[in-house]
């Protein structure tokens, strides 16, 4: 029974000593199974039932009824498809812009600038403050009459209702706030990744006559591969599931829903009459899960491909 690979070199002693890493790994993995994976699997089970979540209420198997209702009943498919497309648009824009902006800021702040601690902390503050306050700050910032953004728009002769107005525009502003709120995390991950890049590599490349662009492309970018992969994955998955900013900034406005919000609303009854419906809510969240899974798996493939190229 050969569990450990040959790459593991630390166990020279008996079979049990070779298994040390596994013993040390077990607590973490067990906790994870117990607290995260287990309940989520239970959720999948509930999605095939009419569970209410109330003690004493009977739980009956209903097969795919919940899924049919969520996905296909009446005009549900139209609204869900629209929400899915919107979610994909949201995720694509947020990922690309947040990733690029985070990288640029990290590169700038990796230099020996004065006040770089100040900037790093400043850009990270939204993460510390949390979603509710991010929403408050931007609702104030985007007040159509008298708010700072309205004033700035005025300099260019523009006028807008911002979050309270047309769905497409409100949607765009949520994208802006989402990026604003989370670029700090992207930045921090890139910055920590940059610490592994040895100065000597740059020196050697410069001696060989590399231009700045070549330095970036041949030294910085490859060396940042793990950070790039992390940020890419986190960005995509996070933006696919995000809905709380929509909740705090514009509420439930037809024409702006994203899937995460739809799932939350169905589960907690923000649409129509509320009811305890664990089973249905579970089905809705499993649908979201699968969409995220498909895109996340694709992202993961890109990540492994990227790894093989550079590492």
């Amino acid at each position, binding site marked *: 029974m050969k*569990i*450990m*690979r040959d*790459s593991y*070199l*630390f166990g020279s002693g008996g079979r049990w000593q070779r298994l*040390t*890493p596994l013993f*040390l*790994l077990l607590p*973490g*993995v067990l*906790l*994870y199974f117990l*607290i*995260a994976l*287990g*309940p*989520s699997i239970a*959720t999948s089970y509930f999605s095939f039932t009419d569970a209410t979540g109330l003690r004493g209420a009977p739980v009956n198997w209903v097969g795919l009824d919940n899924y049919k209702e969520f996905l296909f009943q009446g005009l549900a498919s139209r609204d869900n498809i629209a929400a899915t497309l919107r979610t994909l648009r949201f995720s694509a824009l947020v990922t690309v812009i947040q990733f690029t902006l985070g990288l*640029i800021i990290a*590169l*700038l702040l990796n*230099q020996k*600038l004065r006040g770089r*601690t100040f900037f*790093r*902390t*400043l850009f990270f*503050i939204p*993460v*510390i*403050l949390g979603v*509710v*306050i991010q929403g*408050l700050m931007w609702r*104030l*910032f985007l007040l159509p009459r*008298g708010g*700072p953004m309205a004033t700035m728009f005025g300099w260019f002769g523009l006028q807008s209702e911002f979050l309270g107005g047309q769905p497409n525009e409100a949607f765009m502003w949520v994208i802006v706030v989402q990026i*604003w709120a989370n670029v700090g995390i992207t930045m921090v*991950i890139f910055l*920590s990744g940059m*610490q*592994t*890049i*040895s*100065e*000597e590599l*740059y020196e050697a490349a410069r001696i060989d006559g590399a231009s*700045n*662009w070549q330095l*970036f492309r041949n030294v910085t970018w490859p*060396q940042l591969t793990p950070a790039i992969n*992390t940020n890419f*994955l*986190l960005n995509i998955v996070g933006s696919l*599931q995000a809905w709380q900013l929509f909740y705090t900034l514009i509420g439930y406005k037809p024409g702006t829903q994203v899937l995460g919000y739809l799932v939350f609303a169905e589960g907690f009854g923000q649409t129509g009459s509320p009811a305890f419906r664990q089973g249905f809510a579970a089905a809705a969240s499993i649908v979201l*899960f699968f969409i995220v899974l498909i895109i*996340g798996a694709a992202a993961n493939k890109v990540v492994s491909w990227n790894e093989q190229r550079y590492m």
Partner: protein
Amino acid sequence: MTQKLNSLIGIFTGGDSASARSRRLKALSYLVLGIIAVFYLWPLFMLITTSLKPLTEYLKDPAGLPTAPSLANFAEAWELANFPQYLFNSAFYTATATAIFIVSSLFVAFPIARDYFKGSNIILTLYVIALFLPPALIPQFQLILNLGLYNTRIGYILLFLINPIGMIIMVNYIKSIPRELDEAAAVDGAGYLRYVLTIIFPLIRPAVATVTVLHAIGIWNEVILPTIYLTNADLYPITRGMIVFQGVYGNNWPAIAAAVLMLMLPILVLFMFLQRYIISGLTAGAVKG
């Protein structure tokens, strides 16, 4: 043309030399950073001015400057009965859960990153999948209830001993540490446990610092979980304690602003302290040398 492109790109390649070009690049850097910073400072400023207004004034003029700035909102939050107890609880939960998580996940991340055993990839995939997982509030609640840990500190801390994002950050970071180091240490006769704790752990300080901060923020700011799991007032973290306090987290935005500004201070301090490790600069060279 390539010259211009080069100098423009030159801003972005890191490292600096003592030339005039470098000074121009730095100026450009400050400019870009400054413009972005405006959009962080200004909303923050509005948050602060909001916290200095009484509610009636805020309602009349949400975006304006306070006519008579006062610390009344802060004082009210501070006068909350049991404030020290709640603060202690928050700190206790955050510190304990973060510490246990960091240690346990270090020993999960390392063998996975090195692919030391068959099936390590499966476990990594399971963690990645955890990112996509739907929230499982009620089943998780039933689990804790059945374990007899409802309304206990242990039960509450248990909820925060996992963090798939943290795991992924650590695994990826460890992958950037070359295997030659492992081989050298093994040849020198180092044991696995000692190697991981004394050599790897310091080397991945940036990742550990990052994960620590992110994890701590999650626990510190959590509101719904204490509402569900901790019904005994002695166990309340500060976020739960604040809800009981009139109007906070309701619609009294100046009070909320004041409360949040106060609550964020410990995490801010933690971040500034850990920044030195995130941007340690100690690892560069140590690994390749």
